[in-house]
């Protein structure tokens, strides 16, 4: 019988704090740019104004849930056009497939909000508490006024960033300046406050404390992405055939015996995921390439070629081990798989743009009244009723003439709001319901036929723009 261990290993390992060191280089610069641009887009977009005329919101990007409209600069999406949003989501998905199959987890490494905000929080941390060594020292130090002061400053800055993050989100759903004023005077709706509260809290905790744990334990994406990658996908990897056996850098010694890695741990110290890329591909790696920057810097200093850590494809390992030079990036990226994804992506994109251009600013739906299917009038004529919904997607009220394909067989009466007229006026940006009666005289074939095809039209009285819907006429037959 074996001795039972003192305590069973816990299912959840407490977080090992990571203190990423500052690094300079191509990828770091790229990351700064992406961080700046994405954050600016997120925080500032709701404040862009857009003049749409009276009675319409002058916010460029607005999700108007109450009015069931989505405004995006000059584009205005109605609920029935939700396929635009669906299409964009599919494009986003395909885009993710494309980038993942070509470049691994670049989404994670550069643009994922979790990464961007974590990066921002680490930046603040570094400003206040210093770089890696200072932070490690502070972490191990006893509590003192100095330590409390630094911690509090850091938390306060984090809090304001988190608050701005939650705050920016709600501005997408209401007029930003009005909401901002209501927020400070405590007149804003409860949902705005609760949304802000939740997003502030999650930003603060996720960006400040959980960081890579969100990626490792909470995010499903790292687990799914493997399906989109293959051995030709470029991921951040260590050229172990070049680096091993590693050993401390000593100029005098014969370098032939050793690989290029001098075991300086620079790559490990900069890694926000806290891993050693030299151990091979790991689930935790977000492909942020900071280790590439760190190692390139080292290689430059010791006079070796860059790229000991690099964007590599697994399939190249064998050839490179035998001494082949690295293949050009383009050869990696242009593969049937990525080309297919690109094609699908562009196809949907083109279709959406096309749909955007051909969409009419009148929308008509016709619902025949089924109960009863027809009514006999005293002179023997047969009448059908239809409910028309006319949407006017423009900013001006419009008058529509309601028409039939064949006026000679069928007669039409339009009743809107209880008054009979053949014209319906639809206010700007609204949907109007009108009841339309179509009558077949007793001698018309339509009166006795079972059904007759017909088409109902609405036509703008001024511009002659029209929209038509095919429907049927029920006769006595």
């Amino acid at each position, binding site marked *: 019988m074996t*001795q*039972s261990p003192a305590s*069973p290993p816990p299912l959840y390992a407490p977080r090992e704090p990571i203190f990423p060191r500052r690094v300079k280089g191509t990828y770091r610069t790229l990351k700064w740019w992406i961080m700046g641009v994405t954050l600016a887009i997120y925080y500032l977009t709701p404040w862009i104004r857009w003049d749409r005329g009276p009675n319409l919101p002058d916010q460029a990007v607005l999700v108007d849930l109450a009015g069931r409209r989505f405004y995006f600069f000059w584009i205005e999406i109605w609920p029935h056009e939700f396929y635009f949003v669906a299409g964009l989501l599919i494009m986003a998905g395909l885009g993710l497939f494309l980038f993942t199959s070509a470049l691994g987890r670049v989404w994670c490494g550069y643009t994922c909000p979790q990464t961007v905000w974590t990066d921002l929080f680490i930046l603040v941390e570094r400003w206040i508490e210093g770089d890696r060594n200072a932070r490690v020292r502070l972490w191990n130090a006893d509590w003192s006024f100095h330590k409390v002061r630094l911690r509090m400053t850091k938390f306060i800055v984090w809090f304001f960033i988190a608050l701005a993050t939650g705050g920016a989100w709600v501005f997408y759903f209401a007029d930003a300046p009005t909401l901002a004023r209501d927020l400070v005077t405590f007149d804003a709706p409860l949902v705005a406050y609760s949304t802000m509260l939740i997003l502030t809290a999650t930003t603060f905790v996720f960006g400040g404390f959980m960081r890579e744990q969100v990626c490792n334990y909470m995010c499903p994406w790292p687990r799914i992405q493997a399906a989109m990658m293959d051995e030709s996908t470029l991921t951040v990897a260590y050229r172990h055939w070049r680096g091993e056996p590693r050993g401390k850098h000593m100029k005098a010694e014969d370098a032939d015996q050793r690989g290029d890695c001098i075991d300086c741990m620079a790559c490990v110290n900069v890694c926000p995921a806290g891993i050693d890329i030299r151990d091979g591909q790991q689930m935790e790696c977000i492909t942020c390439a900071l280790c590439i920057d760190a190692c390139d810097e080292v290689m430059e200093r010791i006079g070796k070629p860059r790229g000991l850590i690099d964007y590599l494809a697994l399939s190249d390992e064998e050839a490179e081990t035998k001494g082949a030079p690295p293949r050009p990036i383009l050869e990696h990226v242009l593969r049937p798989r990525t080309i297919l994804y690109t094609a699908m992506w562009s196809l949907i994109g083109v279709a959406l743009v096309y749909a955007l251009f051909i969409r009419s600013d009148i929308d008509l739906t016709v619902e025949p009244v089924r109960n*009863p299917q027809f009514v006999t009038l*005293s002179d023997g004529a047969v009448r059908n009723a239809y409910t028309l919904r006319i949407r006017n997607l423009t900013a001006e009220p419009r008058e529509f003439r309601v028409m039939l394909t064949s006026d000679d067989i069928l007669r039409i009466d339009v009743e809107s709001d*209880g008054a009979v007229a053949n014209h319906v006026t639809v206010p700007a940006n609204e949907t109007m319901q009108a009841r339309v*009666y179509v009558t077949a005289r007793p001698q018309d074939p339509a009166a006795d036929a079972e059904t007759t095809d017909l088409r109902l039209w609405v036509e703008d009285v001024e511009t002659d723009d029209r929209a038509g819907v095919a429907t049927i006429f029920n006769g006595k037959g």
Partner: protein
Amino acid sequence: MADKKDIDEVTGTDTTGHEWDGIKELNNPLPRWWLWTFYGTVVWGLAYTIAYPAWPLINSATQGVLGYSTRAEVAERIAEVDARNAEVSERLAAADLSTLAPDDPAHRFGVAGGASVFLANCSQCHGQGAAGVQAAGYPNLLDDAWLWGGTLEDIEYTVRHGIRNDTDPDARWSEMPVFGDILSDEEIAQTVEYVLAMSGQEHDAAMAEQGMVWFEEQCTACHGENGEGIRELGAPTLNDAIWLYGGDRETLTETITYSRFGVMPAWGPRLDEHEIKAVTLYLHQLGGGE
């Protein structure tokens, strides 16, 4: 249970003694957070059944100390909606329907509200789509034929007082004699042919000529000389394409022989004033309003 504990070699934990294909179930304690959540739900559950109606008794159930009831909640919500609509309801109740503009909010409120009044109270006889039931003599309210008139005023009167009911002295009232007692079968058959003729249907011309005599003698007082009907008396038009009970030979024979007697309750005492106005507006805009 076995006396001696079965200890798993690898982890050193005792097992439950259950074994499947050599795999033993470890007897690990439940995680504490799980256990406390479980106790929490038990406490919550008990408290809930005390606070809210829950435990079944023989004929009823416990009421719960909070005195909550869905029925009361519904009543409350209804009262809330009524209160919100109070102003427009009052406006509608006081309105003169014939001068109420179609785009007046009270008019819209009336048409929409009238639809639900109709569904709740009238659709049982007149059908959900208001097309009536011909076989049973429930009139179609969508067409352009009205026994008692189709103006807003006429409709409102009919709704309020009903037809042929003893409870309301002002009810609309018309009656057709039982001609089976007055005319012979032969004479009735001839009258039927004449009525078929006047409504433009296939008929026996010779019989119809004879039927005209009986018609002029017996029917014109109510149905008019040419069968055009007389609204003040509620007598239907016979020379058009619309029939309350049916216009074929068989149905007409039955109608003339035994007479017909449709009844509609008076809704005045049952509906609120604004509901009567609302259903009137709704009916008027269905397509037949005059």
